[in-house]
């Protein structure tokens, strides 16, 4: 037990020490969290009237962010699949970072669901034993299950790997490999179940299309790795972590295929809607062309399409894929493109016009932005702290000494600059 205690103690010490840039970043995140806390206490006080959601558009910004982040979380498998299934060397060392990203994204997902709930004090009603989950009918009950399962599996994996590395032991394949393999179908299922949550609503023709789940997976395989590519470069500069160029380029190549699939599926959907032009076209029309004077989403929709196409081209051409300026630009474009597409671009048109044909144009309030800032701040903080602890342990610069880490080194090499 003293081993675990020592491990925890040194983790805390790692988190508390760092360079000026690190401290400024953490302080910035804490400010964001503070803003979120103030905004949320206001929302708790007056109710969800603090948002611009109304009966016509009853899910909006929070659920849009949730949907986007489920994609980011699921995308960890893009790194895990090649790394572990094919024993493909360059990615293997860094796949664990994908899992850290998944954990942080899941924290944000669960927080976005929590802040969207009218009665967070009754959260336990959805839990088995304590509450009455509506299995197997309710997709939200399933979603809560798979998201939490994915979180637990990822946490177990990461903690196990870090703890064994910390002790200077190799990990036990009989524990590690099955867990990794298990995490792959769970990752896919989290995203599929989330897609089904919308997909299953016959009342909302915009969502009630079988292409929804495949598009979710395709766009997730773009947005998640985009974060990783940027992160790898930061870690490479600030640590001795060896991440080869070819690993980064390979991920970028996979992303271009995923983006092609995403754009193809989008095209298939747009063709079906516009060519058949049934009454179901209204929702697609609202997003891309606007209905009458209601055009709130139109510029965003086209901007998102532009970002996605531009990123696809940048990642497809080997020359721009291997140039770090254009590569990073592509990552930013993908983030912007998918964030709009899987966030507001998915949720809002699903509910505009509403089921009785009425149009309520939704835009988030300051409170909603504030709460979202708090959730993102929390997620980034979790991610920052996890990376701060993990990298030196993975590098082996931070290990239990002969006295079980009692005399841990003051600061791991390279981290001061981080």
């Amino acid at each position: 037990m003293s081993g675990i205690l020592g491990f925890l103690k040194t983790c805390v010490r790692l988190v508390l020490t760092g360079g000026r840039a690190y401290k400024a970043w953490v302080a910035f995140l804490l400010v964001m969290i503070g803003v979120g806390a103030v905004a949320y206490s206001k929302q708790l006080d007056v109710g969800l009237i603090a948002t611009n959601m109304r009966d016509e558009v009853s899910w909006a910004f929070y659920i849009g962010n949730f949907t986007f982040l489920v994609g980011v979380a699921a995308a960890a498998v893009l790194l895990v699949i090649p790394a572990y299934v094919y024993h493909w060397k360059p990615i293997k060392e860094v796949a664990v970072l994908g899992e850290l990203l998944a954990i942080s994204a899941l924290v944000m997902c669960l927080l976005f669901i929590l802040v969207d709930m009218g009665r967070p004090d009754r959260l336990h009603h959805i839990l088995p034993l304590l509450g009455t989950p509506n299995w197997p009918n309710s997709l939200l009950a399933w979603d809560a299950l798979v998201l939490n399962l994915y979180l637990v599996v990822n946490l177990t994996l990461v903690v196990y790997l870090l703890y064994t590395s910390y002790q200077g032991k190799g990990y036990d394949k009989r524990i590690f490999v099955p867990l990794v393999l298990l995490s792959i179908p769970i990752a896919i299922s989290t995203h599929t179940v989330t897609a089904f949550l919308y997909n299953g609503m016959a009342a909302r023709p915009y969502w009630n299309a079988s292409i929804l789940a495949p598009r979710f997976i395709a766009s997730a395989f773009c947005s998640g790795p985009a974060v990783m590519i940027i992160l790898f470069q930061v870690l490479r500069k600030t640590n001795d972590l060896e991440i080869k160029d070819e690993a980064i380029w390979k991920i970028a190549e996979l992303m271009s295929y995923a983006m092609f699939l995403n754009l193809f599926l989008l095209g298939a959907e747009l063709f079906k809607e516009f060519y058949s032009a049934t009454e179901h076209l209204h929702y697609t029309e609202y997003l891309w062309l606007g209905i009458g004077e209601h055009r709130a989403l139109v510029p965003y929709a086209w901007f998102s399409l532009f970002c996605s196409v531009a990123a696809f081209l940048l990642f497809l051409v080997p020359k721009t894929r291997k140039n770090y300026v254009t590569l990073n630009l592509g990552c930013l474009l993908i983030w912007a493109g998918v964030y709009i597409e899987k966030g507001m671009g998915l949720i809002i048109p699903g509910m505009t016009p509403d089921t009785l044909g009425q149009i309520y144009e939704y835009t988030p309030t300051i409170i909603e932005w504030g709460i979202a800032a708090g959730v993102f701040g929390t997620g980034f903080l979790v991610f920052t702290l996890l990376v701060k602890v993990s990298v030196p342990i993975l590098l082996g610069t931070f290990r239990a000494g002969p006295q079980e880490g009692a005399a841990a080194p003051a600061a791991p090499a390279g981290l001061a600059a981080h």
Partner: protein
Amino acid sequence: MSDRKIPNVLPEGGAPADASRRAFLRTAAAGAAFSGLAGCGVDLEDVFRSHFKELSKDELAKVLAKVEEKNRKRFGRETKVGAEGPIPGVEFGYGLDISRCVGCRRCVYACVEENNQSRETPQVHWIRVLEMEKEHGVDLAHAELYYEAEGVPRPGKFYFPVQCQQCRKPPCVKVCPTQATWKEADGIVVVDYDWCIGCRCCMSGCPYGARYFNWADGVLPAGELNPNQHYLGNRPRPKGVVEKCTFCIQRTRNGRYPACVEVCPVGARKFGNLLDPESEIRRVMETKRVYVFKEELATHPQFYFFYAT
């Protein structure tokens, strides 16, 4: 603060009525993990209550008394909160004569008064009357909910009121993650406002826009409170939960008409027991041709539209 007493985690007299593992877990968790919440104004007795369908007779009586107590505190008035169950051999059906409706919205406001809806910020209406163009027929893309008219009916228009269709296959019940909403034996789809977590899945699932969320605390002057209440019906709702039309469960289970039927000045609204061959609704179905709204979604409503003339 006197209402925030320490919770009675076990009912008086020993074992819980539904001596299940769930109840035990609730009890254990009540004692341990959440004890700090009591100080934050969260009523633990509510937090660790059982699902409505699992309540014993005594527990139900306690729950109802508590609602009456809350009403007394909030409105300073005595109320009678019942929980009458479905009457055996009764399955409610509703008929709406499109050719008669004149779009006066009297049903909308009679419903608001009967069912204790919030009067403002935001106003909640369980019935929504759509003004449609005769030229287009029932076409939602050409429907206007917020029509303002000097007089109705207006030339070239007809009126199409929409409320909960009490579906036989209700999508809202299917998607609810906590079983906080369900269909009763007499066909009424109800919500337990004390079980709903406010996730609003049901609002996404309902094809009729018939579910409404309490975005804020309802505004309901004490003088306008309807004191005859049903636990699953018109009792005042807390903020953060979903509500909907219940065919005036507090009336219809006691042999009365829903308020909207009673108030309709042109007799466009018919109501009765689908299992009774002599009922008004059965007569409508025998002598007129009825249809249901959005039949392609196969929700199989217990609410029928017809054109009598």
